[in-house]
């Protein structure tokens, strides 16, 4: 069946089974591999994208449920919070192996849009669904604080 969804500002038509996870549509059909497959069961957060502005795990969202939504992936996330997060990530050299970082960044940008000056507790709650096997959590938290400061200044 054919579905329409807006991905990174472009209307895309895909002909896939409605129960296909959005993650596979993004990676295999639309060739947007920046969103990562980590666990496939919504336990790690590597596949986080924004759906109508909300962070969601694309491995756990059916294509038929995502149809008609505005989807933004790591390839196109932008705005002052995204810029601040990107700069802070580079300055802090946050990634180690990097596999989870697409999801970490999508969650971090959504956090700053919702809570411009998050506390450690705010960060822990918002980011608790994003697992980092390299345990870069301290750098992630520090970079979010840095980004919060620069996005506001």
């Amino acid at each position: 069946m054919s579905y329409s969804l807006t991905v990174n500002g472009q209307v895309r038509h895909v002909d896939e089974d409605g129960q296909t996870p959005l993650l596979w549509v993004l990676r295999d059909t639309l060739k947007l591999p920046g969103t990562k497959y980590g666990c496939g069961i919504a336990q790690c957060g590597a596949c986080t994208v924004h759906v109508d502005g909300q962070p969601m795990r694309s491995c756990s969202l059916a294509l038929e449920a995502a149809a008609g939504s505005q989807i933004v992936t790591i390839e196109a996330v932008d705005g002052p919070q995204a810029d601040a997060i990107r700069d802070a990530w580079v300055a802090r050299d946050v990634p180690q192996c990097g596999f989870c970082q697409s999801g970490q960044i999508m969650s971090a940008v959504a956090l700053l849009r919702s809570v411009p000056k998050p506390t450690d507790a705010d960060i822990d709650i918002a980011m608790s669904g994003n697992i980092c096997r390299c345990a870069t959590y301290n750098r992630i938290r520090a970079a979010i604080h840095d980004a919060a400061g620069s996005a506001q200044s």
Partner: protein
Amino acid sequence: MALVIAAIVLVLAIVLRPQPLPEAQALPANHRSIETAQLRPAAAFATITDPAVRSVALFEEAGRVIQHPRCMNCHPRTDRPTQTDAMRPHMPWVTRGPDNAGAATLRCTTCHHDANFAASGVPGNPKWKLAPIEMAWQGKTLGQICRQILDPARAHMGRDQLLQHMAKDELVGWAWHPGGKRTPAPGTQAEFGALIDAWLKTGARCPA
């Protein structure tokens, strides 16, 4: 020569000795079919002549649903839900938030949507959320739960609404259609609703 024959006989005896055949083994737990437990119908309690005793018996049968993990997991006594039949803490680490549907920055809808999703195994329902903290059931006896749900200050509903919630609410109904490897609540929602209805009509008596 006799020694050679004896050796051959010995070897044959060892090779051809009776041996037990391989026995069937139980399938691993994740290959077992999920069994649904039955509920006793409300009519089965008609033989109890004392209405008060009948009322308690009806609620105790309904309690097999109320205290089932499918229900208890969403009635936690903290700000964190539990999950699985073992009722372990929810992973990832989530909190109930101001509306019982997650923190503003980590909503239940980050993962849970309108329906169970087989590909990821994540359950779903349009009304997916926790019961209010005033309706915490975990750690309480069935008698305590009974008195709690009859208290409008904690239940946030009167008896008509309570019956509606138990018998008709679609999120409650999810407990009988949980998908994946999750064990459904006993019986059916209609049978459970009939037990609650009969319990209310017999005076809504609570176990000790």
